[in-house]
């Protein structure tokens, strides 16, 4: 099967300036990221604040031009598309953001908001427009009477449903979900996650699900990737990553999830209590070096490639240097 979305060696650097001209440094927000998303797949992306998750999403949505690297949607590099082809690509890739109140126009009613993409892309003739809107609203679990309401009259969960209806209106092949449930309560979060799963089952679209909440990702994603300071440090089938976390950062993240199981024995916090280390990561070495509990001398001067832990499970850590190097790491160097 051909991938829906292919991201290869994607880089996005920001130049820091002091005043107008003087460059003082570069921030490598996304630094050589590779992955593919297949139809009907939920691809999870986890990481802490500032690790480059959202920058990556923006490059994929062509809201931002990457410094280098390719983003291919069904084989076509979206950053090179123009005219009608670009318009088609935009239809095929939609986004849902964290805070629906900020991504929805406060002066448009729910029905207008849902109609907007349909009108822009001229997909429904005017006489069928309303029927299509109502149809979409039903799909996402909104009542017809909510069509004339403004975002401030709807709850957070209902607004997020409007955002989902908007994204679905153009029958996209991929939806980028940037923290779609982070601003919602647990009971509403469950409803939205169920809705997204159901839509995927019916339409076969792919999801790029960005979240910092690992328990949501474990439930939702087929493939999970862990990002740290601009790079993917571990990637693999979700089950495999949770069962056998192979990068020290993934292990740290997993041990920090505040959760419990009904059959669980322990309620204890396992994380060693430490204050953030202000050391900057080494220039050429592993970015995780300053925080790594098992760091070695070579980690300071060499950036580890992704090693193959299991068939499709890769981790970028020298602890696994007895294993073969994953192929896209080679093309990277």
């Amino acid at each position, binding site marked *: 099967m051909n991938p829906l979305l292919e991201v290869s060696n994607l880089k996005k650097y920001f130049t820091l300036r002091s005043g107008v001209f003087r460059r003082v440094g570069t921030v490598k927000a996304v630094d050589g990221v590779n992955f593919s998303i297949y139809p009907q797949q*939920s691809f999870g992306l986890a990481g*802490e*604040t500032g690790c480059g998750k959202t920058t990556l999403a923006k490059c994929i949505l062509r809201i931002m031009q990457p410094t280098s690297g390719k983003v291919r949607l069904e084989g076509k590099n979206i950053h090179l598309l123009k005219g009608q082809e670009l318009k088609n690509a935009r239809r095929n890739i939609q986004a849902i953001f964290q805070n629906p109140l900020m991504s929805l126009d406060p002066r448009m009613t729910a029905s207008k908001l849902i109609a907007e993409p349909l009108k822009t892309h001229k997909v429904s003739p005017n006489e069928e427009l309303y029927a299509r809107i109502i149809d979409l609203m039903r799909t996402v679990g909104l009542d017809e009477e909510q069509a004339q309401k403004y975002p401030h009259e709807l*709850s*957070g*969960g209902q607004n997020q449903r409007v955002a989902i209806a908007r994204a679905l209106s153009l029958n996209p092949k991929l939806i980028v979900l940037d923290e779609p449930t982070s601003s919602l*309560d*647990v*009971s*509403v*979060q*469950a*409803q939205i*996650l*169920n809705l997204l*799963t159901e839509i995927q*089952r019916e339409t076969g679209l792919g999801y790029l699900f960005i979240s*910092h909440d*690992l*328990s*949501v990702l*474990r*439930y*939702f*994603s*087929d493939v999970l990737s862990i990002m740290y300071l601009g790079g993917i440090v571990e990637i693999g089938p*979700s089950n495999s990553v949770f069962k056998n976390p192979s990068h020290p950062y993934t292990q*740290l*993240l997993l*041990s*920090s*999830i*505040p*959760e*419990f*199981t*009904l059959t669980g024995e322990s*309620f204890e*916090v396992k*994380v060693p*209590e*430490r*204050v*953030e280390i202000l050391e900057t990561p080494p220039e050429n070495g592993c970015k995780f070096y300053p925080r790594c509990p098992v760091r070695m001398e070579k980690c300071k001067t060499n950036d580890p490639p992704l090693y193959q832990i299991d068939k499709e499970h890769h981790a970028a850590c020298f602890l696994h240097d007895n294993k073969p190097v994953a192929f896209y790491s080679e093309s990277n160097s």
Partner: protein
Amino acid sequence: MTSSETAQLLDVLHLKLIFRTVEGTLQALDDVELHIRRGEILGLVGETGSGKSVTALSILKMIPENGRIVEGQVLLHGSDLLAENEEELRKIRGAKVAVVFQDPSASLNPVFTIRTQMRDMIFSHQGEVTDLEDRSVRLLSEVGFQNPKRILDSYPHELSGGMQQRVALAMALSCSPELLIADEPTTALDVVTQAQILALLKRIRDATGTSILLISHNLGVVAMACDRVAVMYAGCIVEVGPTEQVFRNPAHHYTRGLLNALPRMAPKGSGLPVITGSIPSLINPPTGCRFHPRCPSATEICGRERPKLETSRPDQLVACYHPAGEKQ
């Protein structure tokens, strides 16, 4: 007063609070009863708008202008805080009862160094002290800083979110409060930092014996840090008990629904069980039990009479006519 009651530090009794809004009178808290024991970490969980934060703010009588406490008492060592005047309250706030809020960058002043802010905090409650520097250094190292002197010279923007929250905690602890109210202290932080702050809260409690009221919407956070938990729904406390016991065997159907809705163990695509309906408007709340329109076990009495918080299992109280049975 019986002997079991004397172990309490703070008692919130029959607290009823309303907000006047354009749309009508909002019954934000209805007969809230909460007991915080000495040296315990009590979690207060609930969804947005359930009244968690307002409960905490009422303890210090810091409610917004359009709010009014209609009924109830907040007893600290048996004396009613709600009956105190502003001047007395100012002495209690920060000294006996301290608060840490969600966004640490909003509770620190951006234009002063941490040294200045800590000095002001200590000065306002204890006047001129000679060992100010030593005391600040000690407080900062208590919250986990390895180089407290450097932190004292920093401005808030030079510190990360987790570090700012540690500074806010150090300041809250500067007057050795008997109760620390932490309102969503980790919501703005990353998971790793969150786990560290929660571990720190436990350590503070162990070291100083300070009681902590931890408010959170995150059930995992409560499970990780709290000895006991109180669950709020639409302005009412629906269940209280030891954290592990409540989470293993929730007696209230709302608690049970919330726990089931967590994407924890459910296999992918299986569908998460949801609580039907949505949170009611507090302007015109449902009669009787406020949860009854959404409750799977509701009967006629639930819509008629408000259930009282009653013991269902040892140390576990529930406000429900038909509490869920024990599992296993």
